[in-house]
């Protein structure tokens, strides 16, 4: 009989914090500048330079720790992690080993059996590395230190997850919490959220954990799910064929859908951590902690509750809208400008989600401003434009955040309210489509739909469909 295996997974999640400047110097953290234009002697490891800690990094880290039920280490320190690599300009990374800022937390995820707690072992602050660009023509690599020194928190979970679904639920939960805090945009594709997967398998019922491997370079939920499936299968194959799983770091190749070991004699994995003598310890007073606790934002659960009490929109809509802090912010801001909540929700639930899905975007990528969405709703409320035109305008607004009012004006998209002109067009349509007229008179109610369509087309979409319907019925 085939043995049954259980997958045991722990995650190390790196999140780039949304500070304006790097963790130890005054360089910008903006994404996508020309290479090495966001660098200075400190973040390029020039001789004699010294780090000075960005206070906002500590505040964000505490915020995330509190939101994930962690104990905050009120006396914490930075340690140096020593290893040579060109993206690491000092050849040591300033991180935290001995006294990380947060410990012993958890988040709850929804699983088929109900809710499950995933333990958080620790959260520590550290600096990001630069980027290596491979130049295959010249057979060399190029280093860009723009990202070097961007602040990170690393969230280390307990080995509490048992499937790819749980891993993704955990990541989505973390992402939501961090986005709600405004501590990061958590974009996997841009690397502002990165997950390393520690995975082992064991026979169902076994007490001891199996030997684990660490998988790196996973930059989408899809590759995380695939890598977990692949690694589980690889480890089971090894065990079944009587071979041992080796504790090692493996790199996932998304194109090949396979992982390979990153083994090197030169990579001793002995990081010689020691307290960084250049950085005095951080002492977090009770007052400071309470101040941060007091300024934590409304998280999703509270928001959901408030929406239910305040807005007359379906629970399903509330779930979707509050799933993203950004979308919830747009919703609230638009409503605050006077738009009817149900209408705002409709625009977000139908058109916005459709476009996001079509273009494979996240809710965080929404660029249009609440002011413009409110204006668009106002235009339709006042029947200045009909719903078809409104959808067209919305597409443009989604892409370019145009002001709908001036756009409608410029493009001449206003509904024609000239009864005479409309009547004339309807008469023409009736004259041009005798077959449909006959069908209608023979009881085919649907035929009127065709005639409405023809009228709208003739009016270049700028008619009020209700008026067209009324006139058609009258004239037929």
């Amino acid at each position: 009989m085939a043995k049954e295996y259980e997958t045991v997974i722990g995650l190390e999640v790196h999140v780039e914090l949304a500070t304006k400047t790097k963790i130890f110097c005054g360089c910008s953290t903006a994404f996508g500048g020309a290479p090495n234009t966001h660098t200075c002697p400190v973040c390029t490891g020039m001789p004699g330079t010294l780090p000075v800690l960005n206070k906002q990094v500590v505040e964000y880290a505490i915020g995330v720790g509190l939101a994930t039920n962690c104990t905050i280490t009120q006396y914490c320190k930075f340690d140096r992690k020593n290893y040579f690599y060109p993206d690491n300009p000092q050849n040591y990374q300033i991180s935290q080993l001995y006294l990380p800022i947060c410990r012993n937390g958890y988040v709850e995820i929804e699983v088929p059996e109900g809710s499950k707690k995933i333990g958080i072992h620790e959260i520590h602050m550290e600096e990001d590395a630069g980027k290596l660009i491979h130049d295959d023509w010249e057979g060399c690599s190029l280093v860009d230190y723009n990202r070097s020194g961007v602040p990170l928190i690393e969230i280390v979970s307990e080995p509490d997850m048992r499937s790819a679904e749980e891993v993704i639920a955990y990541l989505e939960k973390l992402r939501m919490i961090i986005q709600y805090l405004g501590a990061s945009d958590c974009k996997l594709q841009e690397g502002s959220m990165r997950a390393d997967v520690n995975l082992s398998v064991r026979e169902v019922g076994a007490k001891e954990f199996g030997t684990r491997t660490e998988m790196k370079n996973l930059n989408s939920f899809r590759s995380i799910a695939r890598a977990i499936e692949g690694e589980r299968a690889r480890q089971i194959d090894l065990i079944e064929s009587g071979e041992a799983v080796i504790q090692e770091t493996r790199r996932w190749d998304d194109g090949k859908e396979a992982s390979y070991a990153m083994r090197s004699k030169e990579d001793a994995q002995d990081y010689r951590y020691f307290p960084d003598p250049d950085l005095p310890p951080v002492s977090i007073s009770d007052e400071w902690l309470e101040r941060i606790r007091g300024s934590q934002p409304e998280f999703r659960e509270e928001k959901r509750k408030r929406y239910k009490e305040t807005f007359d929109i379906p629970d399903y809509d509330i779930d979707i809208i509050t799933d993203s802090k950004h979308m919830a912010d747009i919703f609230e801001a638009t409503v605050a400008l006077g738009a009817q909540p149900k209408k705002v929700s409709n625009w977000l639930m139908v058109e916005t989600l459709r476009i996001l899905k079509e273009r494979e975007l996240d809710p965080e990528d929404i660029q249009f401003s609440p002011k413009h969405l409110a204006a668009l709703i106002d235009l339709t409320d006042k029947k200045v434009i009909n719903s078809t035109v409104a959808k067209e305008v919305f597409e443009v607004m989604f892409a370019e955040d145009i002001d709908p009012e001036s756009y409608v004006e410029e493009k001449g998209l206003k509904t024609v309210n000239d009864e005479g002109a409309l009547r004339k067009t309807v008469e023409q349509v009736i004259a041009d489509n005798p077959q449909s007229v006959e069908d209608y008179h023979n009881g085919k109610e649907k035929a009127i739909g065709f005639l409405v369509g023809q009228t709208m087309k003739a009016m270049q979409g700028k008619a009020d469909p209700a008026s067209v319907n009324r006139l058609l019925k009258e004239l037929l």
Partner: protein
Amino acid sequence: MNILDYTATELSEKIKQGEIKVTEAVEAVFERIGIKEEELHCYITLEKDKALARAEQVQRKIDSGELTGPLAGVPFAIKDNLCTEGTLTTCASKILENFVPTYSAEAVRLLEQAGVVILGKTNMDEFAMGSTTETSYYGVTKNPHNTAHVPGGSSGGSAAAVAAGECFAALGSDTGGSIRQPASYCGVVGMKPTYGTVSRYGLIAYGSSLDQIGPLTKDVRDCATILETIASHDSKDSTSMEREGTDFTSALVEDVKGMRIGIPRDYFGEGIDGEVKDKVLNAAKRLEAMGAVVEEFDLSLVEYAIPTYYTIAAAEASSNLERFDGIKYGYRVPGVEDLHPMYKRTRSEGFGPEVKRRIMLGSFVLSSGYYDAYYLKALKVKALIKKAFDEAFARYDCILGPVAPTTAPELGKSLADPIKMYLGDIYTIAVNLAGLPGISIPCGTDSKGLPIGLQLIGDCFQEKKLIQAAYTYEQGGM
């Protein structure tokens, strides 16, 4: 009187009074350099043209009344581990043979703001690792008092340059005695202030928790004046401190009446040269005669300072020197196409034997399985050493002892036995471990005519007591 016979502050006074031009002073120094430098080799880099241009600029600022401070116009030397914008900064290492910083150390910036004229960069032990200036990649420096002997180290070039009149004052750095010991060997004044008093920004790190910048000067007044100029709370150095009592020149007062001075018996035991012992104890007697209350006491833990120091300094150095990898600056071995061989060859060729020795030791004591036994243990002993000093300073205003057990050794006699060389640091390194201020002032010579230094150690932030005692001793005549 020859220009070169003035102290730095005297010279600046003469310049401001219009009696001497800055360029005259700079030219006088370069004339002396022309005569002495070939034999002594105090400098790695000399910047004569820049210095003369700068002299003109400083002169104009003095003439216009923009520069009025006590160091305006003083020709100065800078140890080559302090970054100087636009001037080669090598740390006496091949690995930085071509490194020209685009920024200056904060201490250098403050001196330039005060109107000094930088002449060049002084020789030192490679990355400040050594006690003789013999580990420099750029050749040895000789002791101006006897060229068969070393000038001490690691700030040997700075000390020798001051002693030989190849500058009026110099900056050095002190991680385990690297200012005080060469000052002692060369017969000049050298001071290491309390840790955090002078910004380390731009000082190429050796042992970050121990490194401090300080002056090497002709007398105590110059020392106090320079220290007052370079002391700062710098937002670029997280370990630099916001502190009081940095008006060091206010302590230039001739008075030690009632000052309590402790002499550690442990500093005069085995290993100390008889002549050094006698001269240092004579100095103590002189201070006593001037009204100080002098007594002997047991400091304890003295013999543990060296192993503690070498563990901590080597560990920090192994990490601090990782950035020298041939990628961003400095030497890169040519023609090696793979990454790790490039690192290894670059570093093996770029660093000298003493630096490699300390990097190896430091990497080992931090490595998996040894961290607790060595590094953590050393940090605990450091806490005990600090406590021993705290107890001493509950009873004494300052501690008096020798700077080094002997006078300057002969060239070529020290490097063969590293541990023996390390033992020479016994009286200076505990001061760095405990973050204390220490000053070295001349207290005579041995029978060979080599200078002997007297060390005064103060409690943290109590530099003024040291300056007052040193000044009183100095004014009291030999």
